């Protein structure tokens, strides 16, 4: 499905069209790695809870780049590329661990401290006066690429860019306050992790997450149980760059059933009853009536509140038409037993078997396969107008347009 040609990239005018070659071209994939994943963007690396103690580490990815995140003896968090400066092998082969004081490459035992400084080269001075590195070799001249790191609300972000502004500036105060609403003042606890392997380009997943238009149409479970209807109170926030967004809704169980759905003959009028409704019996966690808040940070991070199901999702491209979606399901240290049980039950809503998100795992693949012979055709993004701005309606593709606005700015398209 990958398209190798170097045909000139001509993006149609405005934000309402997306040419399908953007999901297919190998050259664009490589460009994205450079301009977005190693460019002027911040990327989610891990939770602070993943590296809670000095000597803890976790390996992750920023796009294609393997990365090690560590906490040193002073409690500082560091991140550097997981690539030995000698011959390029992975420095660390584990997902996580603790009690580390250094990392030693298995190939030739070149050794790094927790900040990524090269501190040892095996047989540097040779053996019995023979061999060894030349006198001109200085370890200080050789270091893996180190990322700038920023911590926010228990999340660790990193960037290869020396130029991107500080994380809170990058996000803007509105996005930060929406993140604070979910995570602020509490200690996240990991309840579980898994990876969903998506058969599609990473941008198709980001479009899907940002698309508030589809939620109540594709996801019948949501709609039937009145967790989410476009006509409910709610809205969409798109930041100025277009790249970050928040979609939220507040449930109103007393609201009359909405005639708009019946008119559209959308599959939402079944008499579907849960045998065990305890699945949806949550608790009022935020005291603001908002039962759903999906937040994205450009390019590839999602913070999810679906009732009491809290999760972070990290999107890692694995090729033009393959994407890893890493889910981390969260609770908080001060959860009561009943609250924790409610979170575990509501985790059924999300993930690869999620009542409301399993469709998101396959719909990107439906597009990737559907457009296989249509590189020069275009998606139509006119729902809710042509702009990429906040709105009180969620019957809009404004945040999808926002994604492409931010994407094109970074890609020079």
């Amino acid at each position, binding site marked *: 499905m990958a398209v190798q040609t170097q045909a000139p990239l001509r993006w149609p005018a405005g934000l309402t069209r997306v040419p399908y070659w953007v999901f297919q071209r190998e050259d664009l994939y490589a460009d994205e790695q450079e301009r977005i994943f190693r460019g002027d963007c911040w990327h989610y690396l891990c939770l602070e809870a993943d590296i809670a103690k000095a000597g803890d580490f976790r390996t992750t990815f920023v796009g294609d780049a393997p990365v090690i995140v560590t906490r040193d003896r002073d409690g500082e968090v560091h991140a550097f590329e997981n690539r030995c400066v000698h011959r390029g092998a992975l420095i660390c082969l584990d997902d996580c661990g603790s009690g580390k004081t250094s990392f030693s490459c298995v190939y030739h035992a070149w050794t790094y401290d927790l900040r990524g400084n090269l501190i040892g080269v095996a047989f540097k001075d040779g053996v019995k006066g023979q061999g060894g590195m030349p006198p001109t070799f200085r370890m200080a001249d050789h270091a893996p690429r180190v990322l700038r790191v920023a911590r926010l609300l228990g999340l660790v972000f990193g960037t290869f860019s020396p130029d991107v502004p500080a994380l809170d500036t990058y996000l803007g105060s509105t996005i930060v306050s929406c993140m604070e609403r979910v995570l602020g003042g509490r200690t996240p606890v990991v309840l*579980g*992790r*898994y990876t969903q392997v998506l058969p599609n380009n990473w941008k198709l997943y980001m479009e899907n997450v940002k698309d508030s238009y589809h939620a109540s149409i594709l996801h019948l479970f949501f709609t039937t149980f009145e967790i989410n209807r476009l006509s409910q109170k709610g809205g969409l926030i798109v930041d100025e760059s277009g790249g970050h967004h928040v979609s939220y809704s507040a449930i109103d169980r007393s609201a009359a059933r909405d005639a708009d759905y019946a008119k559209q003959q959308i599959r939402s009028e079944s008499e579907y009853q849960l045998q065990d409704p305890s699945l949806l019996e949550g608790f009022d966690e935020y005291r603001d009536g908002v039962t759903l808040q999906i937040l994205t940070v450009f390019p590839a991070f999602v913070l999810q509140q679906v009732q009491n199901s809290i999760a972070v999702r990290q999107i890692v491209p694995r090729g033009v038409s393959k994407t890893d979606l890493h889910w981390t399901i969260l609770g908080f240290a001060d959860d009561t037993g009943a609250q924790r049980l409610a979170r575990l039950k509501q985790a059924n809503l999300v993930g690869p078997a999620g009542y409301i998100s*399993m469709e998101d795992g396959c719909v990107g693949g439906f597009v990737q396969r559907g457009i296989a012979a249509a590189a020069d055709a275009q998606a139509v993004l006119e729902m809710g107008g042509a702009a990429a701005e906040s709105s009180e309606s969620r019957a809009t593709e404004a945040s999808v347009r926002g994604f492409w606005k931010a994407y094109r700015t970074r890609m020079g398209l």
Partner: protein
Amino acid sequence: MSPFEVIVRALADYVRCIDEDRLEGWPDFFDDPCTYLITTAANHREGLQAGIVFATSRGMLVDRVSALREANIYERHTYRHILGMPAILSHEGDRVRSETPFLVARIMRDGATDIFATGRYLDLYRIREEEAKLAERTVVCDSSRIDTLLALPL
């Protein structure tokens, strides 16, 4: 029949039920209340509780089937479960703990067939009158990676 024979029969019936698309009968293999959890070996090892599927009653299993039939959208596919021999881990009164390895191939509507999951069932059976019901089934998948989606139960 010995507990081993009763459990072997229950296992064989269970996987035929899923593989032959008789999902409505799947909850009947469980006691009520029961627990049914699909998780990963890494989560299981670390004692992390959240599952890919997490049910604490037979009603939640019935709801899973109803959602698959009426609500959720996914491309048509079937499983073929291949089970290994159950190991009986303990036997106290009418309660038997066992562990059974599985391999599940997923066959998509276009015929594409892949190994979808391997792992083990960690089971607690309650045996009455030569019939074994699951009080607990923890499906521990060896891998943390799930391809596309996990719709049908394991």
